[in-house]
């Protein structure tokens, strides 16, 4: 599996540096390097990563942050009918400093962008971003002077959830995809142990993965009856 490597050292930036900060490079799974070492600790590292990631992915605390319509559907996912607690993410935090991930639920406005950046910076590592809805993904139907055409113009996005707005189920699916990708991550196990880079797995595209199944559909239900 291919990985994207980001190093903390790169984040100390000059004034003219653009967000998202830090160099990204495409690398192989760092654990694969183990076979070239004289003492093989690969299995141990794999188990450690796997255990830490398991803990992380099942207690993701979301930041209570919403911009527009999508936030209503995101909130719906938190309430009883959809019950996000099933996936360990019900602990909404009102402060970015206590949150693990941020959902950009809604339109990213030019006036709001510096605020979003500030809030993202205030979150502590490890942190992730879900871009929820067409506006956050690409500007969507708002190709208009006041709207940033996709939050990935300045934030590193981990999962994109399509829809305008996406259903709560789609958001929950996005959350599970984030969990899957967290399971594959290689983050420093400690600040004194090993490589300090952050390795994020490049996950397969859902569009390609489900295409074969989706094109099987040949008949759509008519909307004439409920």
């Amino acid at each position, binding site marked *: 599996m291919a990985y994207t490597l980001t190093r903390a050292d790169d984040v100390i930036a000059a004034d003219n540096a653009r967000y998202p900060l830090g160099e990204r490079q495409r690398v192989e799974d760092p654990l694969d390097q183990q076979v070239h070492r004289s003492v093989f600790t690969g299995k141990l590292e794999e188990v450690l990563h796997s255990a830490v990631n398991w803990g992380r992915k099942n207690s993701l605390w979301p930041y209570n942050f919403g911009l527009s319509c999508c936030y209503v559907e995101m909130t719906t996912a938190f309430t009883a009918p959809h019950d996000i607690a099933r996936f360990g993410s019900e602990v909404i935090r009102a402060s970015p400093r206590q949150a693990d991930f941020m959902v950009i639920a809604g339109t990213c*406005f030019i*006036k709001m962008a*510096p605020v979003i950046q500030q809030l993202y910076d205030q979150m502590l590592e490890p942190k992730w971003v879900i871009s929820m809805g067409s506006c956050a993904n690409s500007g969507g139907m708002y190709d*208009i002077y*006041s709207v940033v*055409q996709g939050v990935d113009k*300045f934030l590193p996005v981990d999962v994109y959830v399509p829809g305008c707005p996406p259903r709560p189920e789609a958001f929950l699916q996005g959350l599970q995809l984030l969990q899957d990708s967290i399971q594959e991550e290689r983050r420093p196990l400690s600040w004194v142990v090993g490589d300090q880079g952050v390795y994020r797995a490049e996950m397969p595209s859902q569009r390609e993965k489900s295409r074969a199944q989706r094109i099987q559909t040949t008949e759509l239900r008519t909307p004439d009856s409920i």
Partner: protein
Amino acid sequence: MNVATPHDTTANEAQADPVVVALMQRFGEHAFVEQATLIGMPVLWVAREALVEMLSFLRGMPEPFEMLFDLSANDERLRGNRQGLPDSDFTVFYQLLSVSRNRDIMLKVALAESDLEMPSIVSLYPNANWYEREVWDMFGVVFHGHPHLTRILMPPTWIGHPLRKDHSARATEFDPYTLTVEGQDKEQAALKFDPEAWGMRRGNENSEFMFLNLGPNHPSAHGAFRIVLQLEGEEIVDCVPDIGYHHRGAEKMGERQSWHSYIPYTDRVDYTGGVMNNLPYILAVEKLAGITVTDRARTIRVMMAELFRISSHLLFLGTYLQDLGAMSPVFYSFSDRQKSYEVIEAITGFRMHPAWFRIGGVAQDLPKGWDRLMQGFVDWMPKRLHEYERAMMENSIVRERTRNVAAYSTQEALEWGVTGPNLRATGCNYDLRKKRPYSGYENFDFEVPLGGNGDAFDRGQVRIEEMRQSLRIIQQCIDHMPAGDYKADHPLTTPPPRDKMLQHIETLITHFLQVSWGPVLKPNESQQMIEATKGINSYYLTSDGNTMSYRTRIRTPSFPHLQQIPAVMRGGFVPDLIAHLGSIDFVMADVDR
């Protein structure tokens, strides 16, 4: 006058308007030029010099025009069809509403491009403050005598006035957005609040004030809304709401989407209101097109709009109580919302933004079995509402937190342009569904719930009662849904009825033109106000005889509601502000558009 009107009597009727007669007696016959439109109220062009005097006459007359309903402008430089109207590059319009007369009047002032200056009317109508700032921000018209004329929707660092015709509309016409470390620091510095710029003192003899920045992201601010509080201890000395973090350029968007393809954008203005937002727009377009819709289409529209009113009020109820510290109501009310969405989804095929109304009708007929589904929801709700009332509104903590908190009188509400449940909570019986029935509301039997104290508690209670009345209306729709077509048989119905289109070549051609270019509407102006979920929402459309609107003005209820906050909160405490914010029921898209 060469402006197209369907009835030649429109101008004559307006002539007989007692307000116009009174104005003529007071200011003479040549003081104004009357414009014939489909707006449904007298539209008078007046000289800039006479404006303030005329407005104060209207404000002071017996049964006065108490409310400045709307104030905005129009860049007329590219408008082709304006024969008979005074020369104007930029037109500023003032729309007044008289609750006592149940009438409106619109005054327009023509401005030359070289002389974009107006007198401010803030001393006459306090809510002109934000509207004038918006006109300055969007068109660059300077208002003399305005207390603080700064940008309101765009960032302070923005260059240009977006609603001018020579300003680019698309983000993709600008350089791609980038944010640098330096730019971030600059923008953050520009957002810093400067009390002196607002004429605020940093302390008094006894203490130093604290300035608390609440928002633009705060759990109880309901979206991207910022309010800066000047505090003496826990007491709010003054506060400054700061908006514009949710400006999606919906008005500019109207100038490039066809009359038909603009419908989905209206859904997203008050995003909890769903198809309720389509209604004023569609009704205004139908006035321009001269379409009379079928009874079935009208009843379907009313039914779906009322269903969305319930869904929106449920969201209000959950979040309002959550802001007061009650965690569980939101779980209950969202379960009910899910039930309403099941009905909405079965009928329209979408949850939040169905964009389901069409010019001349609705998108589709009701599916088989809709009545069973709808009846299930209508039967489910009353016991839930009863439970909410018992568990929450009768809860002593909720009562302590909301009774006599952030109260205002009917007179204050009208001065600030407050409409909808927030106005009715003060005891003012003004509901457009009763006062000016549209879309067949006159055929329904329902009551208008009123409050008495105009406090945060009444605003909550009125909405619970409104849900009951909406259920009554929906029940009548289920019982008496008229048979017939769901679309009007009119050449401008977009898209035309499908069965006809498949049989009839002329209709097929019309269909092709309507979906490729869009329907063409005759040059004129029209407006429709409706009683939306949060107050009076109106679309004021100017057609220049094109496939697109020349100017789309959206008057939303939440904009004046937020503007009123400082007037209500001065002297209050911080937790009261949170209760007030919860009780206003606003969404930022309905404020910034």
